[in-house]
């Protein structure tokens, strides 16, 4: 990488002569030991950063990074992604009315349907996300507002949640389960996807709701109190979060493995997003066993049970369909970054080469007369 040499000083052992003369008489002498360490003569690599020594590094970096970047870019471009905003800001949009008269506690769900067309078929597994914008899940007080012990099924925490959950800790004298602001603001829109075939019939696309959370979250971090048997009893004496319509043990009554604290939608929500614009995995559309694409191109209808208000904070709600690659979702940035950095390195390498040829003649020790 850099012109360098191991400069093991040959003089190292030289002075040792006088030190080793020591007999018993000299043993008491305060003379310092002649070791390479104590005399600060450890063999060392001494790179000198000059144009000449550094420029290979730049070329090498450039040559490695540009291909990687191209590879990443191509990979990212091969990912198919479809995104649709259903916030309902426009008066034209189907969800406009739902967006207008929102309320956390309205009993009658507002349903709207958004139609869209996929230009290209989606092969392999398709991941369905909901995306929120301007939602500061990373707010300091928001992030803290949870009780992991309670979510882990700890019975004492269930009854008396952590103080961090304040002011969503108790409700009408009963402790809230799950407590805290994160749980309280659980995303509660329901999305259903229909494929509208050319003849107009709506075929519901099968959305798998399991496997969307981290395995460790589902199996280690989150546990229902008292096992999974009879959640109703287990959650006896607790209150539902203020904004929720139903208690936690009714999140998914169809599947006891997905109910209560181990409901995967809940788990996904509880993993607070890093940035104010984020998406969270909602469902997975598994690849069909036959060769037909998972989502063939064509018209689709998205049925939304519009519960989640975002207009108050200027937020947006989106539904995203995406395939993924080994490097995750569609994001051309990394490829571009690699290409850019690689090119810059290459360019700087050229600059250094010029500098080296013009100015840096010194490293050539042949110039130095002996």
């Amino acid at each position: 990488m850099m012109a360098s040499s191991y400069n093991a000083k040959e003089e190292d052992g030289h002075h040792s002569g006088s030190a080793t003369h020591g007999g018993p008489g000299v043993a008491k002498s305060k003379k310092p030991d002649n070791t390479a360490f104590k005399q600060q003569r450890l063999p060392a690599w001494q790179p000198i950063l000059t144009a000449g020594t550094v420029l290979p590094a730049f070329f090498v970096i450039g040559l490695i990074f540009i291909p990687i970047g191209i590879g990443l870019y191509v990979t990212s471009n091969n990912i198919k992604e479809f995104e649709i905003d259903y916030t309902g800001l426009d008066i034209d949009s189907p969800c406009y009315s739902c967006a207008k008269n929102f309320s956390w506690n309205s009993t009658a769900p507002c349903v709207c349907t958004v139609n869209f067309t996929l230009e290209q078929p989606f092969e392999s597994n398709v991941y369905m996300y909901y995306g929120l914008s301007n939602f500061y899940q990373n707010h300091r007080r928001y992030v803290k507002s949870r009780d992991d012990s309670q979510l882990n099924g700890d019975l004492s925490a269930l009854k008396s949640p952590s103080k961090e959950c304040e002011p969503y800790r108790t409700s009408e004298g009963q402790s809230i389960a799950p407590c805290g602001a994160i749980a309280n603001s659980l995303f509660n829109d329901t999305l259903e996807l229909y494929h509208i075939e050319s003849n107009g019939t709506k075929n519901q696309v099968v959305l798998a709701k399991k496997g969307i959370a981290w395995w460790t979250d589902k199996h280690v971090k989150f546990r229902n109190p008292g096992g999974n048997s009879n959640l109703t009893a287990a959650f006896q004496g607790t209150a539902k979060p203020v904004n929720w319509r139903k208690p936690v043990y009714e999140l998914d009554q169809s599947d006891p493995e997905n109910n209560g604290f181990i409901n995967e939608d809940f788990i996904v929500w509880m993993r607070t997003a890093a940035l104010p614009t984020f998406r969270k995995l909602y469902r997975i559309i598994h690849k069909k066993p036959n060769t037909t694409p998972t989502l063939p191109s064509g018209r689709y209808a998205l049925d939304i049970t519009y519960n989640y208000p975002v207009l108050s904070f200027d937020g947006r709600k989106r539904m995203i369909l995406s395939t993924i690659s080994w490097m995750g979702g569609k994001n051309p940035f990394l490829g571009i970054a690699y290409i850019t950095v690689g090119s810059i390195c290459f360019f700087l390498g050229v600059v250094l080469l010029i500098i080296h040829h013009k100015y840096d003649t010194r490293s050539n020790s042949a110039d130095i007369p002996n």
Partner: protein
Amino acid sequence: MAREGEDAGMAKAPKRKRQKKRKPKENKTRTVHANVLHDCAKGDENPNRHYANNEIKTTKYTVLSFLPKNLFEQFHRFANVYFVFIALLNFVPVVNTFQPELALTPVIFILSVTAIKDLWEDYRRHRSDKEINHMDCLVYSRGEKRYVEKYWKEVRVGDFIRLRCNEILPADVLLLSSSDPDRLCHIETATLDGETNLKQRQVVRSFFDLDCEFDPLKYNSIIECEKPNNDLNRFRGYIIHRSGRRDALYKENLLLRGCTIRNTEEAVGIVIYAGHETKAMLNNNGPRYKRSKLERQMNVDVFWCVIILLVMCLFAAAGHGLWMFQYGDKRPVFDVLSPEGTDLSPIMSAIYLFLTMIIVLQVLIPISLFVSIEIVKICQVYFIHQDMDLYDEETDSHLQCRALNITEDLGQMQYIFSDKTGTLTDNKMVFRRCTVAGVEYSHDANAKRLAMYQEMDSEEEDCMSHGGTLPRRDSVTSHQSARVVLRSHSTKSHRRTGSRAEAKRASILSKHTAFSSPMEKDITPDPQLLDKVNECSSQMDFMRFHSQPMSQLPSDLSDIIDFFIALTVCNTVVVSSPNQPRHKVRMRFELKSPVKTIEDFIKRFTPSRLTSGSNSSSSSSLNRSSNKGCSSLLSSPSAESTLTKLNEETPPGGLEPGFSAAPPCYDGRPSWSPEDGELRYEAESPDEAALVYAARAYKCSLVGRLPDHVTVELPHLGRLSFELLHTLGFDSTRKRMSVVVRHPLTDQITVYTKGADSVIMELIKPLDTGNSKGRRQKKIVCRTQNYLNLYAADGLRTLCIAKKVMSKEEYACWLQRHLEAETAIQGREELLFQSALRLETNLHLLGATGIEDRLQDGVPETIASLRRAGLQIWVLTGDKQETAVNIAYACKLLEPDEEILTLNADSHEACALLLEESLHYIQAKFFCSSGDQSATADFPPFEIYPPASPSSSSSHAAHFLVHRLGLVIDGRTLAYALDKSLEDKFLAVARSCRSVLCCRSTPLQKSMVVKLVRNKLRVMTLAIGDGANDVSMIQVADVGVGISGQEGMQAVMASDFALPRFRYLQKLLLVHGHWCYSRLANMILYFFYKNAMFVALIFWYQFYCGFSGSAMIDQWYLIFFNLMFSAFPQLITGTLDKDVSAETLQQLPHLYVNGQNSEEYKPYMFWMNMIDSFYQSLVCFFIPYFAYADSDVDLFTWGTPITTIALFTILLHLGIETKTWTWINWLSIAFSVALFFSVALLYNASCPTCYSPSNPYWTMQRLLQDPLFYLLCTITPVAALLPRYFYRACQSTLFPNPVQVGRQLDKLPADTRRNILSLGRLKTGSPLSPAPPFLPLAKLSPAKDPRGTPRAPVSQTDEEHGGGGPAAPARSRERLSNVYSSVSTETDTLPYTKDAPPLTDWEAPGQSPPGWTASTPLAARADGVQLSLPPVGAPQCVKYRRSPQEGLVSEHGVHPPAHRTAPAAEQSLYTAL
């Protein structure tokens, strides 16, 4: 003192009125009663019970007080308070960010590390205290009526203690009895002041005549003395006997704690001060604490960090307020209400957030920086300690770092203030010449012998065997001889110059004898003088036997004999015999105490006067004298006759036991008498020893010294015993010492005075030019003065010897007042001083001596190399101007082609005028071409190096640079120049001179000069000295260096660093100073960068979390990042990094300028680092940001890669800044990375529910499976470090600084490098001249070629040495031997000759561009200017001219007599005798 009152107050004993009344009295003095008078040592009755007992406790803490006291001390540090405040802030719920307990960990960690260190130190002190407290000593017990063994801690004030030989004193003890027949006790005070010579202590006078053994039960006196104080050299008090008689007590009566009893079988004393009130303990002050320049600069930047922190916090707070405000009343779900469920107004939230942000961003103020710096400094000190090159084999001592925290200051020195004697010179005085009665004896043979010493190294084995035969103390003999053999063995492997061998021999000797090197001892007498001495003494012998009055002796002969008597008598040298080491050689013929009272005096002197009246006094005294002469004379052929005489003279009874108590000494006498040569002299100053040895060469040897007698052996006359009446010790104000003796031959009371010529010459009896004797005297004085000037010009230290014969009346008159002075308690010193002044008048000049103080090894090279390193060297000495100037030439402080401005003024006005003229002269000489005359009117602030002004790089760029000028100023002028009104002018002159020499300066002046330069020029100053007179200077300077040499340890005690030799200063400054500075500077900068970079990551995040103070980095990482993950590599680099190798640094001294100009750490560098850190953090933040934008990543899964990336970036950044990679560096970086990942993995696997809020369970594990993580970790550090890497490469290619060139030199093969370096020495001027920063080495080639051939032989010899270590020492050794050999062949008697300065010898033929040394970085002049400078300056009124024939001629060089009319006291000059 306060303690005394405290103790008294604390005593719970019922207070009686009597006691209360006595209290005010007790505040002034301490009264000590003997404990044996009272029943119980601890009872209420004991009047001594209020005094501290002898148990010492130096520990700071007790078990209970440790925690509060230690914490209290630690909180004196502002940083600790700050961090504790922040940690506590975390406990406030509204603002907290971390788990409060977690936030406390770093603070607790730091505090506990310090606490553990303190505890350990304290424990060690406790252990040593315990050990000391449990030492045994003999204390008299009333009950058992004998001395019983007790622990030290049980000793109380008022106890009687019996001390045996070689015992250590447990407390300050008043000596009451000694087994020594002279009632003496010898002590070694090495532990107190490091002086190894024995000191005599006397039994209290009233107990002096006690014949039998001292019986404590009979003691019933009361001692009144001063309160405990820390003045080792003062003790005043008196003892009140039952009879009401009072006797004064002196420091001679007090044995100090910690000293060792020597040469005395047994001594008994009463404890006066015990435990913490002993003088030794009161003198024990803790280590010094200084703050280095780098640290001061760092603190400024810490302050900037605080400001940046506040700005960031304010920005975030404002942002948060606005963010809140935009939502208005619609409260979003993620904006959680306060725990009480209340809504916070945006303003309140902003205020809370401000505090939160301080917690989150606290890392910006580097908590670990302070700890790290301390660790690094300790390591640096360790390495400096371990450096073999700073180890002195002769004395088996190495450099001591006494101040642990200013190592980096060593790399930034700009001014060096050096003492001369003992610092530049060996302080091994060699008698060289003398003038007696106006006749000069040049001692040519002596000079030749000295020259021989230089060539001795080949015959080192010889010397070794010689050394081996030297007797030494029994206890160490075996060890020593083993050592000698080893030494002779080792000499083959490295040859040193002769002086080294000599010093080695000296070291063997000096183990036993203070200040006696073989050079002092072996003095070849001048044959002419020897003849005269013989002639004279034989005449005297003849006259004595024929009872002729001695006054008939021809005056020149009597002068000669008096001269030598003065040399032997007028000193404080103690004689010891080598056969019985540390045992005094005793010659007792008369047991008579010196005149101590008036009655005594009358008894002893008046009978003759009273009986025979004044007119007959002479005859009667003559009678007496003949009697006396017989009695005191020992030259008679047989010893028996003397013995019989002695027996006759000895008063019967009484003294007999005392006599028999010391039989070995007495019986031993005949055995050593034929071999005088083996007598050892232990002198307080090397000059004294040199003079005594010189006198011995003329067979006038000192054979014994008792408090009241000095025994001298003279040729033909044999042993003479001089009754020593008084010794008026040397002091720096009087600059002379005198003894009053009764001459055994003439029975006259004679005063012998020896002192600085300037003072003695003024005290010479005004001569009546009328008679011939007076004229002769006057001629003698004149001639002597001439010779003195010559001696001084030769660089010899001059002393004048004078005598005065007093009549009995005069003496009686003087004695009366002297005794008054002696017994006074208040102002005794002043009175004694006045008394001495009264005595030392109307002297008769005997002669003068010239003593050579040889330069230490390697001093000229060291000075030359330090000067090339851009250091200004000032020498401040107490010596005569001429002596100092010559030494300055010898050590190359002044160059022969330099002009010298000499400032000698005897009034303030004259001084002002001189300074004015000098300024004008300098202007005229150096600035005339610039045409910028205004600059001289008011000098702009001084800068040694023009601050990067390449535009004015012509020869005029040297404005206020240092010119080829030397300034010599004497003490008196200095006193005027240091006046407020003149100091600016003085500095203006001094700073344009390359070297400054202040002669005859007092210790106070030395420190004033240092202070002036330090404060006015704002430069870093280093003071180096070896003696007590340098202490004040050492303390004032930024860095004080003590030479652990001959003159005791005071300088070392006051210093920050103690060196064995001056030449080690070169490596200490140029190598260790440079390294320490550059290491620490880089480390500090790196710390700032690291913290800013890490903290900025969080700051950028605030833009994406609504300025809510949220952090994506897990709190654990946040807190331990600095403490653990990134801590080790920087410590390693800070400790081990070497930018340039030691060899190159020493051979290219101008690399030192790097540190002087603080080039590693300039203020702008802090900001550049800050900008770089912000850039890097932006990259490290935004690459992950965009890579994860709009994805389902959660907060901490996103934050963990950022932490990892930041760690990699920070480590790689360190890698770019690391210049030397040893395996330790690799290991530390690998360790850091491994530590981070293992901690992260463990932490993320440890607990699924803990560590709220991040709850990072399995995060790292998941990330490690994610290819994106690796991709990020690759690209981000590269992108972040690209600019710095590129900049470093370009900068070192396009604008390399000298240090980088030095590094490139290091890369070259060793022999090539040496060649270039030797060439580079000739060209050193160029690298630092502003325009071309450094001549590319390739461009040196044309210049090199022509010189290639002549240099060949030199490099050849280098190759011979090549196997053996660095080139520089080899070469300098080579050159050194050249010089010595050339000197030895020279016919001149001096090693440094007047007309041919050694410089010419140093330059190998063919490589002498005129004054290459002059082309130092300081003098960026064109060659033309340099050549036009004549070696002998143009006549100028303040010019110092050097011409070979005349020696030194200068208008002011030789003091006209008029100068000396000023009273001596006013001059307040100081010459170290």
